[in-house]
């Protein structure tokens, strides 16, 4: 029985071995419908393997995977007609042109699209991915970035409910990366986007939720806020002037202060104070206010980037 609500992708206890190499070691994953979902992890973490299993291209050693509530391993063409997939390093027929590849891909969907509809759809996609003027060029003559754009276009040709993109920004210049983000934003109203990438700034900019994987298994999953986690009690203070050395010594000597780091930035000095007791922030502030020789001009909880959180999470499995 197919589930009509719930996650669009559900993976549970997925294992995949290539001889003695274990690519997946009990991967779990839940991708909610209607989200832009970033799939993060170092090289060899199992991201592409998971995506290939979902697409039915490889078979898991054991475990379960569901797409649209149906068993992904037996979903077949009906499920794939609702999915657009961009493989890592996409390879198309090199002797065909961009336009021919997109028409070829369009004809593979149920109904095959009538020629006029297909032509309009191809024209629109060529414009959307920035391949105008290159649509008569053979695939073998495309640059890596152009090939990636073609890959994104072919993934979108069937107006999918679910986009699975394996490193869509790979090989693209900064402008191309921005266009991928814009494109994901364009389709997110009607399409769930599940994509892997190493560009964490992009993930933070566009994703609703992320999963961090490593060593073939899930390490963390949730909204960006969940992954960034509860503030860990690091505060930044900007002091104008020259604070006395005694002030730093005094702050550092407090039992609720774990560390103090200072960096000179022109006429300002930036203090990064990490507290061992997060509730002690109200005791830190009075120490910095009204000091002789310096004025406190800024005081705030330090931002934590997704990159910080990511490195913290994958650090535990690095080198496995």
């Amino acid at each position, binding site marked *: 029985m197919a589930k009509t609500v719930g996650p669009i992708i559900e993976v549970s206890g997925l294992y995949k071995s290539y001889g003695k190499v274990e690519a997946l070691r009990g991967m779990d994953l839940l991708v909610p419908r209607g989200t832009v979902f970033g799939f993060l992890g170092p090289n060899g973490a199992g991201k592409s393997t998971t995506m290939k299993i979902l697409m039915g291209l*490889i*078979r898991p050693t054991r475990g379960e995977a569901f797409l649209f509530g149906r068993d992904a391993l037996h979903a*077949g063409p*009906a499920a794939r007609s609702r999915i657009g997939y961009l493989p890592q390093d996409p390879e198309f027929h090199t002797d065909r042109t961009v336009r021919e590849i997109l028409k070829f891909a369009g004809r*593979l969907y149920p109904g095959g699209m009538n020629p006029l509809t297909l032509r309009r759809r191809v024209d629109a996609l060529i414009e959307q991915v920035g391949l105008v003027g290159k649509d008569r060029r053979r695939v073998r003559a495309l640059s890596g970035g152009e090939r990636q754009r073609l890959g994104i276009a072919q993934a979108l040709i069937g107006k999918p409910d679910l986009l699975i993109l394996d490193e869509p920004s790979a090989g693209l210049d900064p402008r191309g990366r921005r266009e991928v983000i814009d494109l994901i934003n364009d389709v997110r109203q009607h399409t769930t986007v599940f994509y892997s990438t190493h560009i964490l700034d992009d993930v933070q900019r566009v994703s609703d939720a992320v999963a961090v994987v490593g060593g073939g298994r899930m390490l963390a999953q949730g909204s960006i806020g969940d992954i960034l986690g509860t503030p860990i009690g690091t505060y930044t203070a900007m002091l104008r002037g020259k604070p006395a050395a005694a002030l730093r010594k005094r702050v550092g000597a407090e039992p609720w202060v774990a560390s103090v780091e200072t960096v000179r930035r022109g006429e300002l000095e930036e203090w990064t104070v990490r507290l061992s007791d997060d509730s002690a922030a109200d005791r830190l502030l009075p120490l910095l206010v009204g000091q002789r020789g310096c004025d406190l001009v800024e005081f705030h909880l330090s931002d934590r980037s997704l990159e910080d959180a990511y490195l913290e999470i994958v650090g535990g499995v690095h080198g496995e």
Partner: protein
Amino acid sequence: MASERRYLAGFGGYLWGELLPWLGWRGLVRLLVWTGLVNLVLYLDVVTDWDIGWVTLESLDEAVDLVWLFAALGAIVVTVGPVVSERRRGTAGWVVSKPVSRGSYIVGKVVAHSLGVAVSMVFIPGLVVYQWLPDVEHVRGFAPPTPELSRYLIALGVVALVTTFLVALVVMLGTLIKRRGPVTGVSFFLLIFVFTPPAVFSWSKYLPGMLIDWQRPTGLSPLANYVFGGPMGPSEAIWVTVLAIGVFTAIAAASFQRAEL
């Protein structure tokens, strides 16, 4: 891989996509080159009496054999590339990530290449030969009977059947071996083996070679004999050829079904 709910899902769209390269201008160039090559060799043979060893007769029956030989070589060469390279480079994986079953992929490959070879390497070159050769023979003082067009077309159909056998063989080998060199080598070896003169093996009447037999030392081949009003080669060979096409395609599909792409 995953069992498909519809074994031939997406077949029509995929087949059309595979046929397009045969229909576009690249297909036209291939057709012209092939037709020109076959006809040029035959013309040189007939007009200059140039004997290249295994072509000894200068008439339409010989033309059928020549068309067959070129088409057999062409069928192997044009099928090996797409089948092996698409698998190795990942294009096959991309195609079956679309709503196309793996069965459709294999059957589509066999059908598209068989049709492409049949039209551009068998029927059109053969019909061009049929147009000019009798006139040239008469000019040279020979007066071979002009065969009925219907018999000639059926003979070309048999050639197309046997080239389909070769296409299916290459597709099967391509899914099993996955390397261009060995697939090509094994295909050429089997081409020689399957079309060995019937006298070598008592059971060779079941081989497709009995329908064509281009290696015969003297006399008319079974197919040429048919063109001039004789009986067709052994029906066993026809049925075995048809059966082999089905078996090769089924083995290829079963192998591809389990393949990790």
